[in-house]
């Protein structure tokens, strides 16, 4: 006879539960270990879009809709709510950090759109969201953030008129994670506060940025990574380079999923729905091995203020909490992200590790850059990998890309650029929609 003992004491009796009863009895354990529950176990969460539709019904605002013409794809957010992601006729709301510092980031995105024949507008009439400055310095306030948000989104709404097309033709696609988080937060406050609406209505009126005398609010605030997420299978179908041997780590951006977390996309087919879906889903669709690591949830160390004036914190955090962990635990070949500050921080802050005996070497790219690269985009003309401080060359070698030959091609191409023969992703005349240099469509030859 097999000896059995439990150590629970004489009073213990087997409950003899059936498997289904046992599951019910222990379901709280699953809830506890569900990482998503850290974000969802809240009592007071409202969907501000309900307020938005009511305000429109009351005649107080106009909603810029994601219409059928934008060919939306429906996704589920953290709380299981629906979110509409437009897939075409997109107005690029650029990121100052990406355009200033990592230009291959937006260029790769536009290149993918060209390949997929997605209509878009990249124009000059837009400002930064100003939220990087606000979160870093405290200069700015809720009213200024709200007015900038509404001004830029109003321009997206009317922009097509410069091409002789109707308003609402293009839908804004936000490139920066901080802009995305900030705009969503500000939209929430605008929908909740009559006082804030009245104050910014006066300002927007002065700028001529009202629609029928009303504030224009977007139905959805959409981040480019969400577009990439819903279109991932079409991108995967364009893949030219096998990347199934690549061990990829994902760094999710705080302002994409920790600010207004209820609006972030979660998908039961991506990491069991326990974590943010975007980017991971794209890397999986492309065929890479997405490897988990213990500090997945940590920020990158950007800090908004710190990246400018207190980089000891930024580089220490980036190296110790992200890069080294991804290398040691996940043996990663690449770290992929979806936000301006994160890519900058994780990419630029590796070199200095040598000074502290913490030598690290991990290529860092944005998801759309990686996608473009394996879909055959030129590593220098399009992906612009020369602006990256991390060793993107190592990754290219693992992908079988002869980066030295490509680099030489690009250096040769610079001579053509000097002669004014640069290649563009779109007709440069489209970038002006008003002001000096703009030629109305009716007057164009």
């Amino acid at each position, binding site marked *: 006879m097999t000896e059995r003992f439990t150590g629970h004491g004489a009073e213990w009796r087997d409950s003899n539960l059936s498997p289904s009863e046992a599951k019910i009895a222990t379901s709280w354990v699953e809830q506890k270990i569900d990482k998503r529950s850290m974000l969802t*176990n809240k009592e007071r969460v409202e969907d501000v879009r309900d307020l938005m539709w009511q305000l429109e019904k009351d005649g107080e605002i106009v909603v810029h809709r994601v219409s059928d013409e934008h060919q939306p794809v429906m996704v589920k957010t953290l709380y299981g709510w629906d979110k509409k992601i437009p897939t075409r006729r997109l107005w690029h709301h650029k990121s100052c950090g990406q355009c200033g510092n990592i230009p291959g980031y937006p260029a790769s995105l536009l290149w993918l759109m060209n390949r997929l024949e997605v209509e878009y507008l990249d124009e000059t009439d837009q400002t930064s969201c100003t939220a990087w400055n606000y979160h870093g310095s*405290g200069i700015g*306030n*809720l009213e200024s953030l709200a007015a900038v948000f509404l001004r830029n989104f109003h321009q997206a709404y009317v922009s097509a008129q410069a091409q002789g097309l109707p308003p609402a033709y293009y839908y804004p696609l936000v490139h920066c994670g901080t802009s995305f988080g900030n705009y969503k937060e500000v939209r929430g406050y605008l929908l909740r506060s009559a006082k804030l609406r009245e104050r910014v209505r006066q300002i927007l009126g002065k700028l001529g940025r009202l629609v029928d005398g009303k504030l224009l609010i977007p139905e959805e605030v959409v981040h480019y990574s969400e577009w990439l997420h819903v279109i991932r299978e079409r991108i995967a179908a364009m893949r030219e380079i096998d990347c199934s041997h690549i061990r990829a780590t994902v760094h999710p951006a705080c302002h994409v999923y920790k600010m207004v977390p209820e609006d972030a996309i979660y998908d039961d087919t991506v990491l069991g729905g326990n974590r943010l879906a975007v980017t991971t889903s794209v890397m999986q669709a492309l065929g890479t091995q997405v490897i988990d690591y213990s500090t997945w949830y940590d920020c990158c160390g950007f800090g908004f203020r710190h990246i400018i004036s207190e980089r000891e914190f930024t580089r220490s955090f980036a190296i110790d909490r992200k890069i080294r962990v991804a290398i040691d635990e996940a043996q990663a070949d690449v770290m992929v992200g979806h936000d301006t500050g994160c890519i900058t921080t994780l990419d630029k802050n590796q070199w200095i590790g040598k000074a502290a005996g913490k030598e690290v070497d991990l290529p860092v790219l944005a998801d759309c850059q990686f996608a473009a690269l394996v879909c055959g985009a030129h590593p220098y003309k399009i992906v612009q990998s020369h602006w990256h401080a991390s060793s993107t060359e190592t990754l290219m070698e693992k992908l079988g890309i002869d980066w030295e030959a490509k680099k030489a091609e690009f250096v040769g191409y610079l001579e053509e650029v000097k002669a004014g023969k640069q290649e563009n992703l779109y007709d440069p005349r489209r970038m002006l929609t008003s002001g000096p240099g703009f030629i109305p469509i009716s007057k164009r030859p």
Partner: protein
Amino acid sequence: MSHAESTRVQTVIGDPVAEGAPLPRAKLEEIFADIQSDLRFDHELNGCLNCGICTATCPAAHYYDFSPREIVQLLWTENLEGIYDAMQEKIWACAQCYTCAARCPFGNSPGGLVMLMRETAIKHQMPSAKAVLRPFSRVMLKLISTGNQLAPDMITRDHFADWGPNVSKIDAPLKLLRQAIPMPTLNTTATAWEVNLKTSVELYTIWEETGVLKQLEGIDENLFDVINDIMDEKREDWKDFLADQQESEGGKDD
């Protein structure tokens, strides 16, 4: 009853470590009233059990004498001296990642509360705010006068020596490398993208109307003057453009 009158900790137990009030009581109350009067205050602060999840998950808490839990507690208990003390240095340690907000079981946003305190520190022209923001003047000049926070010509070896020996791995003039970016809006060096003149002028109106320029004047008067001059010029340019437009439209009517 106003919050300024209901300082429970101060009234009942006082501050056991303070040697003396750093500022007259009325001034401390004024500072707290400014934080509390922001319409976001009640949204960001719902209560606190001192569980410390926020601090456990806070990146700044790893490296600084900073705890989001402490910030929430100071505001929740209306500890006016403690709030003032935290505004001298601690609030500037926060990395603004909002991990604390995403995880707080009460739905508090310690990161959001820090922003209200930073805005108030600037409004009251606290020396701490001035000192902390000094390195930001280049960024603010760029953002306020152009609409772009970061520009390619700001990324230099002098300013970012710790980023490595090369700004670009291809040795060519910045202007040429920027021209080789296949997005025409990005063929710039002084701004991240080409910003329409009208856009800058509109943004400046927003800064004026929302009191941001006043904030800036209080923190850095010289910078404020420089920005004013630049924007006066831009406004003139825009007026000239509109006048030219009108003239050419009028000419055609004739």
